[in-house]
């Protein structure tokens, strides 16, 4: 290490140590910039996905139906098709089975399903009382409840014909009343296994609703894969849900991108102005250095090094704060922790270093253009 380098290091070091309050201000500025940068970009990256999960409250977006004009499909085939989907993205798979029965001589539609899955694929169902848990328990639609004057706890006799053509008569207990505003209001819901026991048939489904976290394009791909691998099951896109989701989610993400962009530009300028003020103050110092023979290049180098150190330290502080910032927002809004893209961390540090260096060099360059004598005289 030659003398010159040692001198630069020494001036650098003492400039950082001696001017503590100024350095604290500069560091704070850079750290704020880096916090906003990392926090906002992380959110921007993750929120469309988080929101996508919220949109699943609209219910199923994929439907499986029996192919080749069959009325039912075996559940084993359904399972094979579902296995083709990425299991971490599937929120729920609900099979449905419809049949007509009579109760007190009036015809009703009875629907067999799996109740634990219904609450996942159709979270919007308004259920009074409880979901049926035991055999011989049912849930009825609100229109039936009103029409037949039935309430929770009362029993309902049903009779029908099984697929083997034998008759069945059962007395079922109502545990819940469901309200959706659609056709479900006129249905009787029973556990799929119980219905199949009555129908004397095993593991068949008429319709299977799937709620899966995916964009419309991904769904189209899944549909293609299922079509290629299965000839008993036909997948359908529920366009009503997917198309609207795509359009609303698109709007929300672009809102977030724009907000992020505006916030980033503004904070970066703020960081730059702070740095400029801190450096501008040192015109005299620059003048003095020039007067005792420092070249423009060596002064620029020194400020560059200072900016780099400030940028990196500020960047690291900002990264930590930014991660907390993103976590707090995500935990408050969605109640889930955020997924951090790790390459963003070094990127943030590099960007904050670059912004700091640029902000340092602008006033330095202007100070260098001035005659040392003028600066020292205080003009």
């Amino acid at each position, binding site marked *: 290490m030659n003398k010159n380098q040692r001198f630069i290091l020494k001036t650098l070091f003492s400039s950082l140590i001696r001017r503590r*309050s100024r350095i604290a*201000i500069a560091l*704070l500025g850079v750290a*704020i910039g880096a*916090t*906003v940068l990392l*926090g*906002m970009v992380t*959110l921007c990256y993750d929120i469309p996905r988080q*929101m996508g999960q919220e*949109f699943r*409250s*609209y*219910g199923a977006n994929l439907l499986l139906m029996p192919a080749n004009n069959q009325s039912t499909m075996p559940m084993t085939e359904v399972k094979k098709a579902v296995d083709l989907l990425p299991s971490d993205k599937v929120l729920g798979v609900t099979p449905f089975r419809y049949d007509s029965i009579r109760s007190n001589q*009036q015809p*009703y539609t009875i629907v067999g399903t799996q109740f634990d899955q219904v609450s996942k694929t*159709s*979270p*919007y*169902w*308004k259920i009074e009382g409880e979901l049926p848990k035991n055999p011989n328990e049912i849930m009825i639609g609100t*229109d039936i409840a009103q*029409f037949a004057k039935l309430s929770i706890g009362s029993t309902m006799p049903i009779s029908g014909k099984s697929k083997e053509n034998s008759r069945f008569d059962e007395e079922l207990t109502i545990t819940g009343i469901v*309200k*959706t*505003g*659609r056709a479900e*209001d*006129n249905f009787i819901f029973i556990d799929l296994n119980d219905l199949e026991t009555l129908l004397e048939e095993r593991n068949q489904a008429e319709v299977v609703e799937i709620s899966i976290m995916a964009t419309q394009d991904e769904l189209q791909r899944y549909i293609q894969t299922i079509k290629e691998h299965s000839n008993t099951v036909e997948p359908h*896109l*529920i*366009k*009503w849900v997917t*198309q*609207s989701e795509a*359009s*609303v989610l698109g*709007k*929300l993400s*672009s*809102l977030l991108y*724009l*907000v992020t962009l*505006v*916030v980033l530009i*503004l*904070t970066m*300028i*703020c*960081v730059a*102005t*702070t740095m400029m*003020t801190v450096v*501008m*103050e040192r015109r005299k110092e620059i003048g003095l250095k020039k007067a005792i023979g420092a070249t423009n290049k060596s002064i620029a180098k020194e400020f560059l090094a200072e900016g780099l150190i400030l940028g990196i330290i500020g960047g690291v502080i900002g990264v930590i704060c930014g991660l907390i*910032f993103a976590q*707090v*927002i995500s935990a408050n*809004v*969605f109640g889930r922790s955020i997924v951090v893209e790790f390459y963003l961390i070094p990127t943030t540090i590099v960007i904050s270093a670059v912004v700091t260096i640029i902000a340092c060099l602008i006033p330095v360059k202007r100070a260098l253009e001035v005659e040392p004598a003028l600066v020292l005289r205080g003009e």
Partner: protein
Amino acid sequence: MFRRMLLSVLVRQKKKLFLIALTVALGVSLATAMLNVMFDVGDKVNQELKAYGANLNIVPKGAALVNELYQLDDKQDAIQYIKQDDLVKIKMIFWAYNIVDFAPYLTTQVMVNGKPVTLVGTWFNKHLTIPTGDEVDTGMLAMKSWWSIEGNTMKDDNLQGVMVGEAIAKQLNLKLGDSIELTSSTQKITLTVNNIFHSGGVEDNELYVSLPVAQNLANKVGLVERVEVSALTTPENDLARKAAQDPNSLSRTEWDTWYCTAYISSIAYQLEELMPDVRVKAIMQVAESEGSILQKTQLLMLLLTILSLICSALAISNLVTANVIERSTEIGLLKALGATNTSVAMLILTEILIIALLGGIVGYFIGLGFAQIIGQTVFGSFVEPKMIIVPLVLIMVSLITLLGSMPALRIMMFLRPTDVLHGR
């Protein structure tokens, strides 16, 4: 003296003060933009969520079950209908302006080439004059944004045209412009295929025609079967849930609050009040999800706004501190000349407040501009500037600059004139 010094500082130190003004302007514009967008985002997203279509279903009282339970055939008149003349009342309720769109439907069975097909009559984009003097355009097309439709837009006065579902078009081998012969129990008419549409639902197996055509075929002139309504609503809360079970269980004040808030249940209630013999059912799938998404978005924007306000506050106060520290020589000189701490503090504060306010005014307008850019690019509509933001921003700027000067002023108090002038 005070005024002269103030003026000369403002004039001489233009460059440094300009940086403060710039930072304040940027901070304020950020705050203004975020606050404006935040206050408006609920309405805007609500409007976007209308892409999911209707959230209310109006059916005749009793019809919900009668049809299914007794399996009446269509010839009998026992099934109830809604009078077409009653439909304008939808736009006359207390929350009329929250009704975005509505469309009536009348379903009937017709035979095409000897096969039974479901035919639905509706309004596509009907121009209505409401007795209150308002004029509205409403209909199905606006509510079914997810349909992909081939061919020219269907008009309500197009009594010869028909929109054909994709599945049925394939089955009957129909193309745009083809003729199609429909036979009902009483009549026979020929229509031209105006559109072929894909909906992804049961509608793909149906034919859609203008309402009068279906009414003629079904022999139900002036009647409709059900109405879909798309309304802007406030997310449900406990009060709304209580009311949804039984509006009569509410206390007087609760009832007033409920009635005068655009909950889906109160809109449904008002529609039932005004239209005789109907039941209004909230479509839970749309209503419930809408509320949760709306709340999430608003909360997200609120948190982002608060955080960006904190950030801009920190940035501004940081810069003010830097500026005051930088002027220690000047302050030392003033003190050496006999100025008291109070008078120096007054001078600096006034100066910075003036600059901050100037910057704040500029920043407010820049912020309005940003809010408009966001509104236009994202939602394609105007973000209404809210007056409440002006005092909010004003207080924010004054507080931040005052607080930001605090550490600097404290440093100044302990400044020894000789030290500073000596250059230490």
